[in-house]
Each structure stands twice: as C-alpha cells, then as structure tokens.
C-alpha cells in the first residue's frame, strides 16, 4: 500500500467507528419486527430529513454529477437545481398520505390499492429489484473507488470492508440503525462537499476569481443552448448535448420526480413519527441536500481548471484533464468505471490538502453506504417479508421476520459484491436507467393511486410491464447505437437526458388505461385514496 497521510487514515477510522457504534447500540431493534422494518415509526423530522438526503443521493450524485458538470459545463447546474427543487414535491404527493396509510413495505400500497395482495407485489417488485441491484452494486463500486483512490487500498479489499460494515449495521439494527447511521452520513457528505467548495474558493480568492479561472481555462463552460453562447463565438457551446434546449431542460426534469417515487426514499416516510414529521422531513432533506449540492456544483465546475493547472500527475505528455484522468484510470483501473468518474476526486486532489482529502473520503463512503443500506432495506423486506411471507406463504419467513430479513441482507450484499468486484460497464450504465425506470413504472400507480380515485389495477400492471420494457430498450438502444443514453432513441440529433420523455408518456398511458378499465371497489378507493388526503 502506498503511503497515505495519517490525517486521512485517522478520519477514516473515526468514520467507521461511529457507523459501527451506531449499529452496535441499535441492536435491540431486532427484538421487535416493527422496529426492524420501520424503526417503530419513531424517527424525528431532522434525523429523517438528513437520512432522506443521504439515502437519495448516491455515488452517482457525489461522483457522477460533478463529473457531468466537468463534461457538459454550466447548463448542467440546472440539473442539480432541478433535483433539489423536486424534493419538496414529496411533502404533499407521497410523504403525508403514505405516512397516514402507514405501510411496512414499498409494495404494500400497490397490493392494497390495486386489490391484488400477491400479483401486485410481484409486478411492482420487478423494477424495484432491477433498480436495487444496480444501485447496491454502484454503491459498493463507489465506496471502492473512494477508498482505493484516496486511501490507496486494494479495490477488492475496499469493497469487502465496505460491504461488511454495511451488513454489520443493517444486520444488527435494521431500519433503526439505518436511520441513525444514514442521518450521520448525511451530515458527513454535506460537510465534505462544502469543505471542497470552500477550499477551491479560498485557493482562487472567492467566487468571482474562481469563475474567472474557469473562464480563462475554458470560456465555453459558461454557455447555454440557443442564444446562450458567448458574444464572439455564436454556435459554440459547452457540449453537443447542451447545444439544443431539450438537453438543458430534460436534465432538469430527469431526476426531479425521483424523491417522491423511489422506493429507498419512500420507505423513509413510513418511519416518520407522524404526518407532520413526514412533511417536515422534506424541509430538512432540502436543507442538507441543498447544501451538499451547493458544494458539488462548485467542485464539478472547477475540476478541469484545477487538474490542468495543478494536478501532481501533470507532465510534458499529460496536460489536459482527460489525459490526467486516463493516467489515473490506468493506475486504479476498475472494470467499466467511466474515466470522468474520477474527475471530482482528481480536481480536489490538485489542491494538495490531506485534510480536504480526508473529509472527502469520509463523505464519499458516507453517501455510498447510505444509499446501499437504504436499498438493502427495500430489498430485504421485499424478498424476506413480501415475497417469501405474503406471496409464497413460507412459514419460516412469517414466524421469523427479522431472521428472514437478515438472511436476505446477506444474500443481497453478497450478490452485489460479486457484480461490484469486476463491474461490467453494463451494470454501471444501468444504474442511470435504474432511476428513470422506477419513475415511469411504479411512479404513476403510486402518485395517481393516492390522488385519483379512478386509477385501476389494469393500468398499474400494464404501466409497470410496458414501461419497464420500453425504457430499458430505448436506453440501451441509444447507448449502443447513438453512443449515449442522452440522445433521443428515435432521433439521434435531439438530446434527451436518460430517455426521460417516458415519464410523461407513462403518466398519460396510465390515465388512459385507467379510464377504460374497471375501477376498484368504492371501499378500496375510500380507504387507500380519499381517506389518505
């Protein structure tokens, strides 16, 4: 192992000590299945809000979004603004009504609202399993990258350590441990992003000076599509994807609705003390998540100029950021990881501050572990309670609910560990699709089920099956044929982030099918729709 600064090692040990300590002190949760499933519905607004932010924002946020800014320039700022602007929507749309309904599992609502206790659990489970598999794998990969790039730990050792620590606290304390550790991780990741941003601004001498340095290095960073070019270079933009307005606008909306619909955030509303607390948690998620994104935008914006002027790996042959990243990837190469995923770490590494890197490694591990644990709690309840107990009627799973969830936690982490060990590019690519697939499949039946009495079971089943297939096909088609998942599948000259048009199309499809199919019983509508408002 190469020499690592003692500050980085100390901060890492402290971080792991706190997480393991939370797991140990919450082990009593295993005595009561409701504590293990939904933390006894005792989580307060601030803890839940911080945990919501940490769960929702994955390594795709911490590494991927600054990398997108590095690649696409200023227009991608609006993508991050769109993500945070989407958080409050959950307050009315799902947080309050779902807390009033008080389910245990993500699929409970689909089973009850659409009057199909077994089939709806299986159908709704399809996109959830695919998305969860991609996200847990991505979280392990993200954790491995951080530990490898900053702590110089062997990649396989890094994901083994990370996987064992996540398993330790999820296994012992279930949702109680996950809630408190994730809330702590929310603070850590926000401090890391803010520390990085403040260090950059301190280095250049303020926001204006940092912006000037970015401009001097790459003036076209500060452009928008259409007439948003610089005065003396019409028709020149930061990136081809951002040369047409659909590019900038679709990136605003692609992740915008996820907070209200993604299983790993929705289940956190089940843990809230009451409806008020569920609504207030959305405010705290904005406070914590918004602060983190404030830092990430600035880190991503300055990553290129930092690397091209200060990175220690620069030499006569390695001058551009892309060349530096290629060199880093050559040193730490991991399967299908994109070269730009290192840009955030490499940018801050250029500052040469061990303290910043120490905080960054803690933040990176925090965000990866929080998302991984959140998804494991979705999947272990889905397999251990819903499928084994409710669908298959397995006696052991029904009589030993906590043990069943623990077994599934182990299985899920082990399978995802095997995929993370040498990740195929496809797995990491699918983590992008894993987001849009949930919003356009289980999203409409959830939100319209809560807010529209006419929503039907046929519409729910057909929307999930049709848009699961269509979104995956179009995503893979664009990626493989057009060279990027961000070009419209039917027309390669139109930029559309992650094929996000499937979201409005699936909503229209769901409404039309609902209007022409048999409505649920009046009693069901009253209990699972109108009474929840």
């Amino acid at each position, binding site marked *: 192992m190469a020499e690592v600064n003692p500050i980085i090692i100390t901060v890492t040990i402290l971080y792991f000590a706190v997480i393991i300590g939370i797991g140990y002190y919450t082990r009593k949760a295993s005595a009561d299945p409701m504590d293990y499933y939904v933390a006894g519905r005792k989580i307060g607004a601030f803890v839940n809000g911080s945990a919501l932010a940490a769960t929702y924002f994955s390594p795709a946020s911490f590494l991927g979004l600054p990398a997108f800014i590095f690649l696409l320039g*200023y227009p991608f*700022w*609006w993508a*991050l*603004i*769109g993500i*945070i*602007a989407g*958080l*409050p*929507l959950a*307050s*009315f749309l799902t947080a*309050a009504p779902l807390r009033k309904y008080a389910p245990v599992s993500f699929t409970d609502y689909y089973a009850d609202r659409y009057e199909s206790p077994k089939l709806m659990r299986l159908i709704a489970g399809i996109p959830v399993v695919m998305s969860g598999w991609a996200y847990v794998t991505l979280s392990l990969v993200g954790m491995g990258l951080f530990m490898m790039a900053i702590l110089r730990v062997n990649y396989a050792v890094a994901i083994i350590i990370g996987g064992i620590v996540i398993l330790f606290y999820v296994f012992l304390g279930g949702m109680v441990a996950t809630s408190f550790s994730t809330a702590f991780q929310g603070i850590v990741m926000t401090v890391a992003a803010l520390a990085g941003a403040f260090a950059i601004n301190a280095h250049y001498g*303020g*926001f*204006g000076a940092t*912006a000037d340095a970015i*401009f001097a290095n790459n*003036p076209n960073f*500060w*452009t*928008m*599509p*259409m*007439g*948003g*070019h*610089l*005065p003396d270079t*019409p028709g020149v933009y930061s990136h081809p994807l951002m040369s047409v*307005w659909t590019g*900038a*606008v679709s990136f*605003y909306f692609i992740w915008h609705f996820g907070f209200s619909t993604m299983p790993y955030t929705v289940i956190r509303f089940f843990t809230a003390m009451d409806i*008020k607390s569920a*609504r*207030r948690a*959305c*405010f705290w*998620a*904005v*406070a914590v998540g*918004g*602060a983190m*994104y*404030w830092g990430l*935008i*600035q880190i991503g914006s300055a990553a290129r100029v930092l690397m091209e002027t200060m990175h220690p790996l620069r030499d006569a042959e390695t001058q551009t950021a892309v060349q530096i990243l290629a060199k880093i990837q050559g040193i730490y190469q991991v399967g299908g990881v994109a070269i730009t995923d290192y840009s955030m770490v490499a940018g801050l590494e250029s500052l040469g501050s061990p303290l910043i890197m120490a905080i960054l490694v803690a933040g990176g591990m925090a965000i990866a572990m929080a998302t991984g644990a959140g998804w494991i709690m979705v999947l272990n309840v889905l397999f251990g309670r819903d499928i084994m107990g409710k669908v298959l009627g397995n006696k052991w799973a029904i009589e030993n609910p906590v043990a069943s969830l623990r077994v599934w936690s182990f299985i899920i982490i082990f399978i995802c560990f095997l995929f993370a060990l040498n990740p195929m590019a496809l797995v990491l690519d699918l983590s992008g699709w894993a987001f849009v697939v949930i919003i356009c499949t289980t999203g409409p039946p959830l939100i*319209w089920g809560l*807010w*529209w009495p*006419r929503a039907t079971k046929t519409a729910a089943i057909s929307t999930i099956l049709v848009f699961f297939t269509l979104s995956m096909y179009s995503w893979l088609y664009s990626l493989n044929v057009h060279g990027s998942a961000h070009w419209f599948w039917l027309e390669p000259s139109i930029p559309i982030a992650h094929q996000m048009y499937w979201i409005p199309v699936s909503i229209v499809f769901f409404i039309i099918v609902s209007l022409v199919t048999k409505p649920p019983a009046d009693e069901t509508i009253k209990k699972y729709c*109108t009474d929840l*408002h």
Partner: protein
Amino acid sequence: MFKGIHPSFWWGIAIIYGYALVFWIIEMSVPGFIYYTKIGGAPAPYVYGLTIGLWIIPLIVSFLWFWIPEQEEKKQEMQSGKGAE
C-alpha cells in the same frame, strides 16, 4: 385528479417552475449573459442559480408546505375544541 391536495401545492409549483423558466429564457436569449452579468464580482448564476434557485426557493417552499397545513390543522383543532365546549 389531485382533488383534496392543498392549494399551496399549486402556487409552490408555479414558483419553482416559473423561476426556472424565466432564467432559462434569459440565459438562452442573451449571448454572454451567464458569465458577463456580475453580482458582487461573481457571475450572476452564483446568486440566482446556485444560491436562490438551488437552495433558498426549495427551502422556502418546503417550509411553507409543512407550516401552512400545520397552522390550518391547529386552527381546526381550536375551533373543534370550542365547538365541543
């Protein structure tokens, strides 16, 4: 559809999307606006995008979206309490 959702939901959405739309139109219409328009020495998006759009507006909207229903619920509880007397 969405019958029973609190009215503040709709004006909150109008603020969030209206704000983004106004600045998209300006940014996509005025060459050089993003970098050359300065507020306090920094490009204007540091203020209207990074600070107000990213953080302040969602914070205010998410605050009002729990505060307004809570005040109304308190008022209803007080009125029902008086009615019981």
